[in-house]
């Protein structure tokens, strides 16, 4: 029970933290710290080197956990390289990215 409450509180705190980010600053930081290199300028994913991050980013806590200690080849982002406040800004930016038009609505993608 105690562990469950701790988990809920952690997720709640992480969600709250994510909501406090500044999307404008987050876009700048996303570029500055190099996220775009593998994930694209709009976090659309490179297909080959980095997955799509937005729209609908994974939960903040999961993003933070992976970014601090990635299980794959992604470079680790320590708090020194990317402080929590900057990560919150990036997350806020990711949440602003809209869904694209459906592929079926784009003529070039139907050949």
């Amino acid at each position, binding site marked *: 029970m105690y562990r469950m409450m701790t988990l809920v509180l952690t997720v709640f705190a992480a969600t709250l933290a994510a909501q406090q980010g500044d999307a404008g600053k987050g876009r700048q930081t996303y570029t*500055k*710290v*190099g996220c*775009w*290199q*593998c994930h*694209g*300028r*709009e976090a*659309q*994913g*490179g*297909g*080959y*080197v*980095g997955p*799509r991050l937005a729209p609908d980013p994974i939960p903040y806590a999961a993003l933070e956990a992976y970014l601090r200690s*990635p299980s*794959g*080849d992604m*470079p*680790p*982002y*320590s708090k*020194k*390289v*990317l402080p929590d406040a900057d990560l919150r800004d990036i997350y806020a930016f990711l949440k602003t990215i809209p869904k*694209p*038009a*459906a*592929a079926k609505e*784009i003529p*070039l*993608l*139907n*050949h």
Partner: protein
Amino acid sequence: MMMAQAQPPAPPQAPATADPMITEKPGADFMVDTIKSLGFEYYSANPGSSLRGIHESMVNYGGAGGQYITCCHEESAVAMAHGYAKIEGKPMCVFVHATVGLMHASMAIYNAYVDRAPVYLIQGNLMDATERRPPLDFVHSAQDIAGMVRGYVKWDDNPMSLQHWAESAVRAYRISMTAPRMPVLVVADMKLQEAPIPPDANLRIPRLTLPHPPQGDAAAVEEAARLLVSAENPVIVLDRSARNQDGVDRLVELAELIQAPVLDQLGRMNFPSRHPLNQWDRARSLLANADVVLGLELLDFWGTVNAFREQLVHTSTPITKPGAKLIHVTASDLFMKGNYQDLHRFREVDVDIAADVDATVPQLIEAIRKLISPERRRVFQDRGARLAAARQQQLEQARTDASYAWDSSPITVARLCAEVWNQIRDEDWSFVSFSKYLSRWPQRLWDFKKHYQFNGGSGGVGIGYNAPASVGAALANRKHGRLTVNIQGDGDLMYAPGVLWTAAHHRIPLLNIMHNNGGYHAEVMQAQMMANRHNRGIAHAPLLTSLADPAIDFSKLAQSLGLHAEGPVSDPKELGPALRRAIAAVKRGEPALVDVVSQGR
């Protein structure tokens, strides 16, 4: 002390014999006759005096056939031959001038060597020190000139007579075209080129007969067939597997026969991109679930069945499950050298067949046919239906993935590839660029069917390959009337952009679309990895990977070299019209270039 008085110089003496100044039968004429017998279509070169004898004979004595292609760099000349060979299935001849030319050419030779592509090099040199013009011929000559590339040519020779030269020239062609196909080099000594043919030389050009490629051992092939037929989850992995359209057709036949998923690593055009059995997007899960893996001429079998994790401590784990049977057919085992490490990690396989894939796949198909029972056929059909449904989902997913950031500027690589496909899909097209730096978007969005529609990569991953190899591929495609398409990296083009002049000068139709992401993007990512690993980040510096200050105006560069060129295009809506105008120029027989400001990958 008496000083010795200087003696006046002796008066010049008349030569004992007449000073011969003219010969109408230089050795180079016989060399040209020999070259002619090999049937080259094209000869590429950056001209140099160590080959002046052959050069003059090629032009004035003539008869060698083919066209002389003027290049601005030896690396371009060899890389052109590399791209040409993979489209045309035979070597182009490259004349390489002296020590300096071979040093320039060496990177491209290494790429062709690793990529198993035949390239035929004729190398200028002058062995006899008493014949060398001081000082130039000394710095341009070597006692063993082929030594500097011996680690990455299949064979070389330094013939000492014209008859020796003819035999070595024909032998070199034969060796280059025998699997595994690779570059070869024959030295044409200046003295041999320029001295008169001895009246009693009794010269003869040997007849060229190409050897039949080796098939796999019959028992080993039958064992491979038995494993594949009885497997519940077989996987076929392809890399440099198909050499021509027959090869593609046979690989399709093999996969369809057992309804096995195919993972194409894109060393060549091996398998149709939209075929229901083409399952690259599920590679990891299919390999993890496989009970039999058949690799056909893989550059790196170990890397195919193992996952390598690159953090501060490098680790690897097997992808395939314990007990999975691994089969490899490769001609690379028939020819090995020790220094360069393109042999990769040691592969532990269950059936290892040292043979040519093109020659062995028909044998494997026949062995499989004999083993298929009606019950197994039903199993295969069910498997094929499941794979086809999965493939349809993958194709739809690729289109969905491409739709993200559709209107973004810089233009996404997915949008760039979709725009190009929209312009070429009704043409007889040939895409000749390396797809890895394009995140495989062409293979995900386009309908590749024919062997000439894709030309693999560089082999050695030596940057500077793509631009000249594309011109070479376009040269091969020209007589077939194909629309050759090159999506060209900015960093790669800047190695030797003079090859665009070669394309313009020789009217080689080629559509170049610049993937102008403003830097050496692979290295941008590597720098990021190191900066984060060292806990410093990259926020403060681009770490020497940028080509952005000043931004390179590729359209002006191309225009100055004689191409139709447009750009930079940064608005995706302007890309389609720019491509249409460029294709119109290409259809007039010219090379063209559209500079596209693009995202990284």
